[in-house]
């Protein structure tokens, strides 16, 4: 639904279209720095252009050499002081913004209305483990679409992300919500998000991480608190067990899919690839590359490499009946 | 030109500058780059200190007595080399050759000590470069130092050959001096390695 309605808004990743307090702070700093730089640019480039115009050589080749000016201590001190003052000023405003933007995450507390999520970067998709919300333990895992609650007037709902990597370096970047933060193997990083309004916020991995770096897309779905609560409840459930789909499920479980994928409530407990428990609740497939439609799902299961060349899921060469059966089963995973 | 014209200004006399020669500057520059190189390896060693999840740890693996002996050899070689240079400057060619040979011998003893130590580490302590972070950083740091010692020994051997053929004398001692600088530098690096690797291993970290 969000995919359909908010297309125009969703299709902005501009850093000058901020939707969170941190992104706002950065924009104010950015505008200030741009203004200072612009002023320097106009003055210096102006003097340059004036000089080359005013002092261009005339046609007379025999004109005497112009007076030689070797330097002047007073002038040098003056134009050392000017940039020094500008630097001092910039350091002060940078300090202010740094302290606004980089906040150490607090520990979860009762009634803190804060969401704690662990984000794991993987080649080339995102894994989200929901830890606690309002100090309520959650403990389920999903992939590629991060759902977070929107703040309400007078009541902010901060989201504290713990960023880790399972393989190489990645970087979490949703420009409208925050600056980027890297996910580095062997390290734990933190990033605070806080969204002003419901909507879909796009981004993508910003640190080169291998073949499909370009398609390691980020989707943050910001929902009204009530809707977010419903989403949490649904996601915490084990996978739907539709009696009509038992045969399809058994076929799925007999395939090597389960070596990598997990479907909670079944023997599929792979932890190497996206959790499929509520696959059909997601808007997209392949880390945001294609819309989650039955046709796309079928294409994806048949041959992921034709859609996302180099991705770590191979084509298994299933027979057409098995293929259809597995796609049918996946479609029951609401 | 009339006689009353002001004479052209005469430039001040040229003062000859003193300072290291080009060759000496070259060696100083080279050693500066070596400082940067070894600093990097030492930083890596220190950065990974105590981060291992599998043994052996430096404390378990390293033994001091042998390395104190080789260290004394290396430091002694610097002193002997200094004496050799003084012999060369005072024209005592034979004692230069003898002292220079002793320097080389001490360098070789150091290398033999390292080889013996590594054999023990690999065979008895099962510490290889791929074993753990300590093995990785230890062999890289100590290995590159040993490589530099080897280079120094070889260069000194060439100087010795030239000296035996009577081609090294007081008048062309710059080469000997520069080899000396290199050798003293390699010794100085060893002192840092000794402290960072061996002393901290036995005193339980930095």
């Amino acid at each position: 639904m969000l995919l359909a309605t908010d297309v125009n808004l969703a299709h902005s990743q501009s850093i000058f279209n901020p939707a969170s307090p941190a992104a706002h702070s950065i924009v104010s700093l950015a505008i200030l720095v741009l203004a200072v730089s612009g002023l320097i640019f106009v003055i210096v480039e102006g003097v340059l252009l004036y000089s080359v115009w005013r002092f261009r050589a005339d046609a007379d080749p025999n004109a005497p050499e112009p007076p030689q000016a070797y330097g002047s201590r007073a002038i040098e001190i003056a134009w050392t002081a000017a940039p020094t003052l500008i630097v001092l000023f910039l350091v002060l405003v940078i300090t202010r913004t740094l302290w606004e933007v980089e906040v150490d995450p607090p520990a979860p507390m009762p009634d803190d209305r804060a969401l704690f999520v662990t984000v794991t970067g993987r080649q080339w998709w995102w894994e989200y483990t929901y830890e606690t919300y309002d100090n309520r333990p959650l403990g389920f895992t999903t992939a590629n679409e991060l759902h977070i609650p929107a703040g309400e007037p007078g009541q902010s709902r901060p989201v504290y992300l713990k960023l880790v990597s399972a393989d190489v370096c990645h970087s979490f970047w949703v420009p409208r919500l925050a600056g980027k933060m890297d996910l580095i193997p062997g390290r734990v990083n933190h990033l605070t998000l806080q969204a002003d309004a419901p909507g879909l916020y796009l981004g993508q991995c910003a640190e080169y991480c291998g073949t499909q770096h370009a398609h390691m897309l980020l989707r943050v779905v910001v929902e009204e608190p009530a809707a977010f609560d419903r989403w949490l409840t649904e996601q915490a459930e084990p996978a739907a067990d539709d009696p009509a789909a038992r045969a399809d499920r058994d076929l799925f479980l007999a395939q090597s899919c389960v070596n990598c994928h997990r479907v909670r409530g079944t023997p599929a407990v792979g932890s190497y690839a996206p959790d499929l428990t509520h696959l059909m609740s997601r808007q997209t497939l392949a880390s945001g590359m294609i819309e989650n439609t039955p046709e796309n799902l079928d294409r994806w299961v048949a041959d992921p490499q034709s859609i996302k060349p180099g991705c770590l899921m191979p084509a298994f060469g299933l027979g057409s009946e098995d293929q259809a059966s597995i796609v049918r089963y996946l479609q029951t995973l609401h | 030109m009339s006689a009353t014209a002001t004479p052209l200004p005469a430039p001040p006399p040229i003062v000859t500058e003193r300072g290291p020669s080009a060759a000496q500057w070259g060696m100083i520059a080279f050693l500066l780059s070596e400082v940067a190189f070894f600093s990097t390896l030492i930083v890596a060693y220190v950065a990974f200190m105590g981060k291992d999840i599998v043994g052996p740890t430096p404390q378990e693996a390293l033994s001091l007595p042998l390395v104190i002996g080789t260290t004394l050899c290396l430091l002694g070689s610097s002193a002997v080399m200094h004496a050799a240079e003084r012999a060369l400057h005072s024209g005592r060619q034979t004692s230069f050759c003898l002292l220079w040979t002793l320097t080389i011998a001490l360098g070789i003893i150091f290398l033999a000590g390292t080889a013996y130590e590594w054999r023990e580490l690999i065979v008895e302590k099962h510490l290889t470069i791929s074993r753990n972070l300590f093995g990785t950083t230890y062999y890289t740091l100590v290995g590159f130092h040993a490589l530099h010692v080897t280079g120094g020994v070889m260069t000194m051997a060439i100087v010795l050959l030239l000296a035996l053929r009577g081609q090294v004398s007081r008048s062309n001692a710059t080469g000997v001096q520069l080899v000396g600088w290199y050798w003293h530098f390699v010794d100085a690096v060893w002192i840092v390695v000794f402290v960072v690797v061996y002393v901290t291993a036995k005193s339980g970290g930095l």
Partner: protein
Amino acid sequence: MAFAESTRAVGQGDTAVAHPGVATRLHAWTTTVDHKRIGILYVLMSLVFLVIGGVEALLMRWQLVVPDNQFLGPDTFNQLFTMHGTTMVFFVGMPILIGVGNYLVPLMIGARDMAFPRLNAFGFWITLFGGLLVYFSFATGGAPAIGWFAYAPLTERTFARSAATDFWALGLLISGIGTVTAAVNFVATILGMRAPGMTMRKMPFFVWTMLWTAFQMLLALPPLTAALVMILFDRQLGARFFDTSGGGSAFLWQHLFWFFGHPEVYILILPVFGIVSEVIPVFSRKVLFGYEFMAAATMAIAFISFGVWAHHMYCVGMSRTLDLFFATASLLVSIPTGIKFFNWLATMYGGRIRFASPMLFAFGFLSMFLIGGLTGIMLAAAPFDFQLSDSYFVVGHFHWVLIGGTLFGTFAGVYYWYPKVTGRMLSERLARWQFWLLYVGFFLTFGPMHVAGMLGMPRRIYTYGMDDWTVWNQISTLGALIQAPSYLILIYNLVVSLRHGKPAGDDPWDAWTLEWTTTSPPPSYNFETTPVVHSRRPLWDSKHPDDPDWLYE
């Protein structure tokens, strides 16, 4: 003499060869230890790699001209940007400046050659060999796809299985040793072989910048060498430096790489500051304004450059305090850089500016480098960089500095000294064509990248689906197509003028430094008699004996 006889014998024996001199000349060039020939070899090598790197860039621009383009696959694209960056930094930028320095430093200080001519030749050949090794990676089935800064653990066996990464690391390691030998040579030559009277305070400004460039090379390259050794040990011996599953550190690589990487940026710009500091005075007919302050500023940049590396790493989660430290240090660089800029303006101010080709490119440098410097201030402002880092804004910024700064400045030097090197003038008409195509094409290529970056486009993506970015990428590609012929014009000009250029004479620009006192091209021994120097502009003194510089210095 034996050599001369043997060459004659070869020439006479090979009558079947169309040009009997070719083999002999090739032999003479490959065995040369003459700093001038080695300098030319460095520059030629850089130009060849410039064309290769340029073709790689054009292929990438063509891939990005429309969203979801199928022209190149992800693997090819990732290999191309890895090789493009590696090539341009290590096999174009550095060698071309080392080459110019190699040619000019001995001439400018009145020496017969570099301090260690054979080491000099060795340095060139292993730099070239390193470049060939890096390109040999294609023979393994594909170049490495790791990015030019090759963040660990992407370079570990687990993620980069082919030997391409080994060739890459080995090639850079070897060419890095070449660079260090060049730096040793520069330091020894400049500090130990200046003409009588040329004190440290009376060196031509270009020589001063080369000295500090060499200083930076000496301290910055070895950490990279050590880090490359670590990669190779990891890959070949199973060491664990960057093996994050065995406790190794991805973070260590980033620190080591940028400890090299940031001074590297100044290695690529300081000599260019030197070049334009020679060109601007001569074509403004005025002495360089504030030499001492310029010199101090150069030194300051060389030192500060070692304390700013982590401004490439604001997004790794250091801490606010460290972010602030590196932001402050990075901003401090703008003070000495500002001093330089103001002094160039003051040199031009009140002069009589001749817009011959060298000055035209120096003007290009001034007008463009300013912008690159200002976008650098934006990136240094840490919180702003949280958004800009690793976006196309960064790509725009460093190309602005490296093309708008380094390349325009280097071209100014090429036009300025080509008459000295060859005895012929380059065509001014072609120079103007090259300049304007490059100027406009450059602006169109890299300007829009800043916008795309601010619209959220990350770097190093082989394709995109975001509509906002399309138009900016298309302007970029258009700009690249406009730029491309400018390089061909330069090469055509360089080749054709060699035979058909106007004879230059010893001193075509009415210049002031020692290289213009000898013939064009200079004899292998450079000067018949060792020059004696009393000021920074020895030729000014001899052209104006009534009012020499040494009265004022």
